[in-house]
């Protein structure tokens, strides 16, 4: 072992002392020769004879030198360095080829690792600070506390269970002087076993304890590490300090670990209050929700018992729900979801809750895109390498004929491929970081306390992608190397084109790669197009009202310390007082919902059809005040909207409320029948349709406006007010909120205005959130197009170079320029046409597969299959671009001078 080390070191040393050792060895040989010569002269030879005898005796000096060099140094390393230098030189000479290959690798590697990082951040990454996230599940919809207790005790399903209400906003202030206005921060109202169930640990103090956090004990609060760092100056003695929450005092007992932001960090939670605190801390707790059988507000999180699968747990909890419903005498059996279940379990360990189906859709889309990009890059590289390899036949033949060994040549070609891959890989890393920085900047536009999803590059994936592309490059660099180094010197020396003349090249490897590339480019562009148009479809749609001069702001009197009655009294007067301000034309009040409605419709309602049969529909349910549509300038199509009589009413739980529905709800619920006067049921409640309006907020995956049912704000809502309220008003454009703020101050100095903005800004914000989720798709589509074109251009250029001789002869025999051009273009065009058709079919096939997994996607595909922009535009664009990509290098064929070409013979 030591001997081996010593030899290696000595050899390594020799590599660096190469020049000196060479000179020394020459000296040594000369000494030897002279000594030999003297010996022979002494034996009686003439000087000349002696010299010749000495040379003979010593042996071939050149061979000795080379043997000496090989023995003493590291021949493999030295030839590798030689090959590397040679590779750099040849690549520099072929800058076009080299830069195309490098750009392709850089984009491929960069995009793949970006995609994965993105997927990782949105789907795969577990919620920070959570133990064994894979074993956590949650109920998709909130339930009542008695139901939760029953689920928790259901034997064998969960080893731990917890509930929380949230995310809910809190008005948070620091205790003591200089505290300033309270800040609106989101958090969870949690059961005492919340932290132990999800397996979070405190970094300071303690978390909640069922023995200590009981009804009637002094209020305690846990804060996130982020809140502690940003608002409490990372005070190490923070445990025991007082925090003002909605005007009430609570003692900080613990701080979470770094990164922990509740069980679903996509909707962050920074404040954790026990459910046992007084309702003054949180209006959500009013009405004794813990014992109320009519308050389905609790989100349930379970840690699955060992060996319990999600499907088995869902079956068990579904059965439990059925029994509970029967026991309570409730006919909730109509509320079955698409899979025939009363409840749905979702995976809870990630950044946001996600069903298994959603997860596989995400994985499918990302997997497809990554697979396509990767194979695409490889195919493109391979095509280039093959083209280049065949164009180099002559060079290789010459080198073989002057005595290069085959292994040495292959080694050199491999080194060339690896060099390209290395440069490309480095550039790919740069692209990855650049793209992700762009994405992060895009994200940073949001408020400081918004979601903390981090998209960070995943080094493993970058390396893997790099390795695969490098292997592909090396592999395809090797294939032509093997083919062209086959000792068939004569053909090679005569010129590669001769070899090509007689052979059928139509289905060569290279053409196959090109077809594949065009096909996958087509598929990528289409799939990406489906995604973008699907998600954005609703975004650009006319919301049905006039946004110019519309302003919005929010208030949350309950969190400003109002009692329910104070709140109701203030809110009934507010629109009128604001309306009296100079320049304000109309004011209306609503719950926060109607203008941030990106969520899919989430409430099941049922109607009775003509044949007395029930049908269930999913709608968005919103609560609005008087003059809502008048203020918005949204046309009321039938009936009338709510008036102030509705606002002042105080209906009992079984009263039939009036409802206003929008046009798409009317179509969905009643078809062509006149909806006025019809009854809509939601659980135990009933509404009677009093009006139809044109109104539709943007939504994902929807062509039609989201079906929406509006209910009137009543005294009951005004008193409860758990979500706060949104005030919308119309005023002259260019208004700042000074006058409004002044008026609010005059009404009550406690009242805090938040989120003041124009309606246009509000819509833009919604748009932004969609842009964020779709940001990466255009990049993918663009990449596909660029790659396909670059690949085509490269291959066509190589083709022209290869067929120089053939073209020269054709022209000498009288072919026109355009005929030659057609000859060269025809092959490219054929490949583009075949490839596009395959890609077209593939994209639709894939969408069908996705569609069978999720109804939303199926709808998108259905609505897009006939979308002329995509199904006609995309192929046209691709064909056009690739025709240009073919034409530019093909044009060179017309400049071939037959005289020059034929003289090269």
């Amino acid at each position, binding site marked *: 072992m030591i*001997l081996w080390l010593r*030899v290696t070191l000595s050899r390594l040393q020799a590599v660096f002392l190469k020049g000196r050792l060479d000179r020394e060895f020459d000296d040594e040989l000369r000494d030897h020769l002279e000594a030999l010569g003297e010996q022979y002269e002494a034996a009686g030879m003439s000087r000349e004879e002696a010299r010749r005898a000495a040379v003979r005796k010593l042996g071939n000096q050149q061979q000795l030198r080379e043997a000496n060099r090989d023995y003493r140094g590291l021949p493999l390393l030295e030839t590798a360095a030689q090959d590397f230098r040679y590779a750099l030189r040849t690549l520099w000479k072929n800058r076009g080829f080299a830069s195309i290959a490098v750009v392709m690798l850089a984009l491929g590697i960069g995009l793949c690792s970006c995609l994965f990082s993105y997927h990782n951040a949105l789907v795969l990454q577990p919620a920070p600070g959570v133990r064994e996230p894979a074993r956590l599940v949650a109920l998709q919809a909130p339930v009542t506390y008695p139901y939760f207790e029953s689920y928790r005790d259901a034997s064998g399903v969960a080893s731990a269970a917890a509930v929380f209400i949230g995310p809910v906003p809190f008005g948070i202030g620091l205790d003591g002087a200089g505290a300033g206005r309270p800040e609106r921060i989101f958090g969870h109202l949690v059961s005492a076993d919340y932290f132990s169930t999800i397996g979070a640990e405190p970094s300071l103090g303690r978390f909640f304890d069922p023995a200590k956090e009981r009804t009637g004990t002094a209020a305690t609060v846990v804060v996130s590490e982020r809140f502690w760092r940003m608002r409490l100056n990372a005070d190490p003695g923070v445990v025991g300090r007082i925090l003002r929450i909605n005007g009430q005092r609570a003692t900080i007992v613990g701080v979470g670990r770094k990164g922990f932001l509740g069980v679903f960090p996509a909707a962050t939670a920074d404040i954790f209050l026990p459910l046992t605190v007084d309702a003054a801390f949180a209006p959500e707790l009013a009405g004794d929700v813990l014992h109320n059988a009519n308050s389905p507000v609790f989100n349930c999180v379970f840690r699955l018992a060992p060996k319990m699968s999600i499907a088995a747990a869902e079956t068990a909890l579904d059965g439990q729900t059925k029994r509970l419903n029967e026991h309570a005498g409730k006919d909730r059996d109509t509320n079955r979801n698409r899979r025939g279940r009363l409840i749905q379990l979702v995976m809870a360990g990630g950044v946001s809750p996600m069903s298994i189906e959603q997860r596989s859709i995400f994985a499918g889309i990302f997997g497809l895109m990554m697979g396509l990009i990767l194979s695409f890059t490889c195919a493109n590289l391979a095509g280039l390498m093959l083209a280049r390899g065949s164009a180099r036949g002559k060079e290789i033949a010459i080198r073989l004929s002057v005595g290069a060994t085959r292994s040495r040549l292959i080694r050199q070609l491999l080194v060339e491929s690896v060099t390209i891959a290395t440069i490309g890989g480095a550039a790919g890393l740069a692209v990855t970081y650049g793209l992700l920085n762009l994405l992060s900047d895009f994200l940073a536009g949001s408020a400081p306390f918004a979601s903390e999803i981090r998209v960070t590059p995943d080094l493993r994936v970058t390396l893997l992608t790099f390795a695969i592309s490098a292997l592909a490059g090396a592999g395809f660099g090797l294939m032509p190397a093997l083919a062209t180094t086959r000792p068939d010197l004569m053909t090679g020396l005569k010129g590669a084109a001769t070899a090509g003349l007689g052979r059928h090249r139509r289905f060569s490897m290279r053409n196959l790669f090109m077809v594949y590339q065009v096909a996958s480019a087509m598929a990528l562009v289409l799939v990406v197009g489906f995604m973008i148009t699907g998600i954005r479809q609703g975004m650009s749609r006319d919301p049905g009202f006039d946004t110019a001069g519309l302003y919005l702001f929010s208030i949350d009197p309950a969190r400003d310390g109002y009692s329910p009655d104070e709140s109701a009294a203030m809110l009934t007067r507010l629109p009128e007082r604001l309306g009296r301000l100079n320049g304000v034309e109309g004011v209306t009040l609503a719950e926060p919902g109607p203008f941030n409605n990106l969520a899919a419709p989430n409430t099941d309602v049922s109607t009775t059809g003509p044949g007395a049969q029930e049908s269930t529909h999913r709608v968005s349910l919103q609560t609005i005040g008087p003059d809502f549509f008048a203020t918005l300038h949204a046309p009321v199509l039938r009936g009338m909207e709510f008036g102030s009589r509705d606002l002042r009413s105080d209906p009992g739980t079984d009263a039939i409320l009036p409802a206003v529905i929008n046009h798409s709800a009317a179509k969905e619920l009643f078809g062509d029948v006149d909806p006025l006067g019809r009854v809509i049921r939601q659980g135990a409640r009933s509404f009677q349709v009093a009006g139809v309006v044109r109104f539709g907020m943007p939504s994902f995956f929807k062509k039609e406006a989201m079906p929406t049912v509006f209910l009137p704000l009543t005294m009951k809502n005004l008193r409860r007010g758990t979500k706060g309220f949104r005030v919308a008003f119309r005023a002259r454009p260019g208004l700042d909120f000074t006058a409004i703020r002044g008026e609010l101050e005059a009404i009550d100095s406690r009242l805090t205005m938040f989120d003041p903005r124009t309606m246009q800004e509000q819509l833009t914000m919604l748009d932004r959130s969609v842009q964020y989720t779709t940001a990466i798709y255009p990049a993918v589509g663009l990449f596909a197009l660029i790659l396909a074109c670059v690949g085509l251009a490269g291959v066509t250029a190589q083709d022209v170079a290869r067929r120089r001789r053939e073209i020269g002869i054709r022209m000498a025999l009288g072919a026109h320029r355009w005929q030659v051009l057609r000859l060269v273009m025809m092959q490219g065009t054929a490949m583009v046409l075949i490839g596009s058709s395959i890609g077209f079919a593939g994209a639709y096939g894939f969408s069908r597969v996705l569609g069978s997994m999720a109804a939303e996607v199926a709808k998108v595909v259905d609505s897009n299959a006939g979308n002329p922009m995509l199904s006609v535009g995309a192929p046209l664009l691709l064909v056009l671009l690739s025709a240009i990509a073919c034409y530019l290098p093909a044009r060179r064929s017309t400049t071939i001078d037959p005289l020059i070409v034929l003289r090269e013979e």
Partner: protein
Amino acid sequence: MTQAKLDLLQGTLDLMVLRTLSVLGPLHGYGIARRIEQVSGDEVLLNQGTIYASLVRLQQRGWIKAAWGVSGNNRRAKYYSLTKAGQKKLAAGTENWERTTAMMSRFLTMGDGGAQ
């Protein structure tokens, strides 16, 4: 077959070089080659240049060391000399060689011994 014979020769040559340096003291390449030729005739070296491969190998293993010196007729030459490790190697190599040859000769003369 050729390879195996070459390997044996190489090992033999290394031992010869070590022995030469041990007997004659520091010596240049020509001197070593000449000495080996004198002792063994032309049976070992294909030509005198062959000796240099062996010299590099022995140097790498640290068994001999080289230094530039002045030869008898006042010419600069590279002198090789045995190191401590080289002496040990020579001793071990010699013993190994003697045992091998003794064993081989016993083996190859066994038939004669059986006849006695």
